């Protein structure tokens, strides 16, 4: 059994807690949150040993792993404490939003050979896994454009005040929504080398952005667009979609389905004909041992447990992988100097029609 504790028992934390507690290989020995009404309820009605202070919990309990689901700005110091004590760490996304601090944690975990994982659960959604597989197969030819979109109904009026809408807490659509879309881009086509035309706008929020748009540039000349808006009530819940265009076709994936269009059949995808091929979540989802809200949430916890047992240090969603998303966020914030945009190596539309 993996002796595990959790810090942060808010909305996402409770969901993780439920899944972690249901895992047959994990012994969830304690939870920690400063909010006493929550810990009161959990200790009385769920029989969970609770702490209000992380240091005390880490001092008292004999642990193998820590799950961190606190507001983003608390991630870095808490993760560091856990790693210092030799614990494997699962951290909710986004990672730490400070590239230098993040790199230190990556190095620390590597030096101690500790398993790390960040909760970018979309990498465990069947349709997105399929999209990554199709792109990596090379069947789409040379990738020249990608579009990542995330929309949903989070901030819909000029009020409300949880940490998600407070800038210094790591809130805002950039951290909450865009990070998922960015990580999917990193997962499916690779990390952009630079960004441009960045728009970060408030629609309703006082302190933070509610919409984020940007162009992305990739090695080899491919381009991309990021479109994120968490003030869109036309969506019932967060909806994330990625589309990839290549010289031999395109694909579009969301949580429910992966649609592929091939101009010509490709040896890397035997059995897939030209034209449209659509796969649905019903045939792309792997069964999980416990289901709450979506297979992906359980699958990522199970993956972490397996990584810990096997000491897998190079798995999916490691700190190093999630740091790439933080790097793109830093580029969007203009916090890191951007390399000069290289001349596209492939000829673009205008040069082609102009014969240049």
């Amino acid at each position, binding site marked *: 059994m993996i002796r595990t504790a959790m810090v942060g028992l*808010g*909305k996402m934390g*409770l*969901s993780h*807690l*439920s*899944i*972690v*507690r*249901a895992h047959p290989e994990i012994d969830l020995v304690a939870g920690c949150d400063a*909010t*006493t*009404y*929550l810990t*009161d*309820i*959990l200790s*009385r*009605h*769920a*029989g*969970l040993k609770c702490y209000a202070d992380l240091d005390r919990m880490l001092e008292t309990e004999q642990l193998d792993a820590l799950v961190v689901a606190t507001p983003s700005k608390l991630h870095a110091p808490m993760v560091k404490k856990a790693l210092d004590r030799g614990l494997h760490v699962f951290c909710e996304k986004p990672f730490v939003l400070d590239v230098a601090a993040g790199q230190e944690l990556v190095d620390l975990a590597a030096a101690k050979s500790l398993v790390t994982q960040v909760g970018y659960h979309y990498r465990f959604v069947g349709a997105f896994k399929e999209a990554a597989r199709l792109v990596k197969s090379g069947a789409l030819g040379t990738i020249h454009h990608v579009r990542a979109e995330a929309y949903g*109904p*989070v*901030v*819909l009026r000029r009020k*409300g*005040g*949880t940490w*998600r809408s407070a800038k210094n807490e790591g809130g805002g659509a950039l951290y909450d929504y865009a990070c998922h879309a960015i990580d999917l881009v990193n997962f499916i086509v690779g990390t952009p080398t630079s960004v441009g035309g960045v728009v970060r706008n408030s629609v309703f929020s006082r302190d933070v952005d509610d919409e984020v748009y940007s162009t992305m540039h990739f090695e080899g000349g491919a381009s991309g667009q990021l479109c994120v808006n968490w003030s869109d009530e036309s969506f*019932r*819940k967060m*909806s994330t*979609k990625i589309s990839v265009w290549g010289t031999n076709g395109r694909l579009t994936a*969301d*949580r*429910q*389905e992966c649609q592929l269009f091939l101009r010509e059949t490709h040896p890397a995808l035997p059995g897939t004909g030209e034209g449209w091929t659509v796969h*649905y*979540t*019903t*045939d792309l*989802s792997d*069964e*999980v*041992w*416990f*289901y*709450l*809200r979506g*297979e992906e949430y359980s699958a990522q916890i199970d993956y972490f447990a397996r990584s810990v047992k096997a000491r897998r240090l190079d798995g999916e969603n490691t700190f190093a992988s999630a740091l790439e998303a933080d790097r793109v966020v830093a580029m969007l914030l203009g916090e890191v100097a951007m390399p000069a945009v290289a001349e596209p190596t492939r000829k673009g539309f205008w040069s082609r029609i102009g014969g240049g």
Partner: protein
Amino acid sequence: MSTATTPTSGHVMDRVLFGDNQFFGVNHMSEEKARAQSMRFQDLGAIIDVLDAAYDEGIRTFMCTSHDRVALICDHFRANPQKYADYRFYPCMPYAHKYANAVTEHGMIEALRMFLPQEGAMSAMLKGGVALASKDIEAIMQLLIDAEMKMFHDLSTPVVFMQNVITDLLLGLRMNDCFRIFHDHVRARYGAEPGYITMNVPRLLDVLDQLGIDNPIVCANVNKIGFRMCGGMAAYEDAIANRRFRPVAMSVLASGAIAPREALEYVCGQPKIESVVFGASGRANIRQTKALIDELSIGRVP
């Protein structure tokens, strides 16, 4: 099956129940299809037309979430008591996105306050930031259930379900008391049979057994491709055949991934399944599915 003995535990469910996912933009295969459905059904009349079509095919039970728009559907049924004299609602609570979105926007305590009666002592206590003591969780749950049930007043609600996102959250958290609180309140306050929707049947049955909740109504995915049947198809088939509970099968067509006859043969081939819930938007689909279930249920002893 034992015959009905008391009004609270003996409600005989119809063989076919009508679901509501199609009305509120829920589709497990396609977001585009879900959006097209929410456009079509933003007009209440379009929803009523479909419910009437189902009624014409003999479907008398609507199993629905406590979505805000269901309140309008309830108004329509209350306004036409003669037409729908034998009609029943099976409320499924809560429509979780309304809570989840409120928690994201307002924080947990403030969101809780929004859903509790404004004038109540509980609301005042939460406002004052008083910690929730152990005895209070029961009172809060009762108030939340009452708030969700309000829209169904004066309608027949012989079964009241806990939605799977709540059932399974509580199940994982091991907050088993809550199942008992729900059970007791639904029976005492509404004279109704409590039901539990879950994606984790074997695990839930173990907990309900421990709590001494006898022969519970449990609604879960039962489909030939094993879609969202956690614990595995074999464990489900075994539980349905051998454990004491009243299974209601949902997602039987797996959002269209299985051909209807094949799908329903699988479900109707398990004689302990009492009811099948399905949703559809067109009269032809409703008729076909209802007729198939009826055909495949011939000879079944209810």
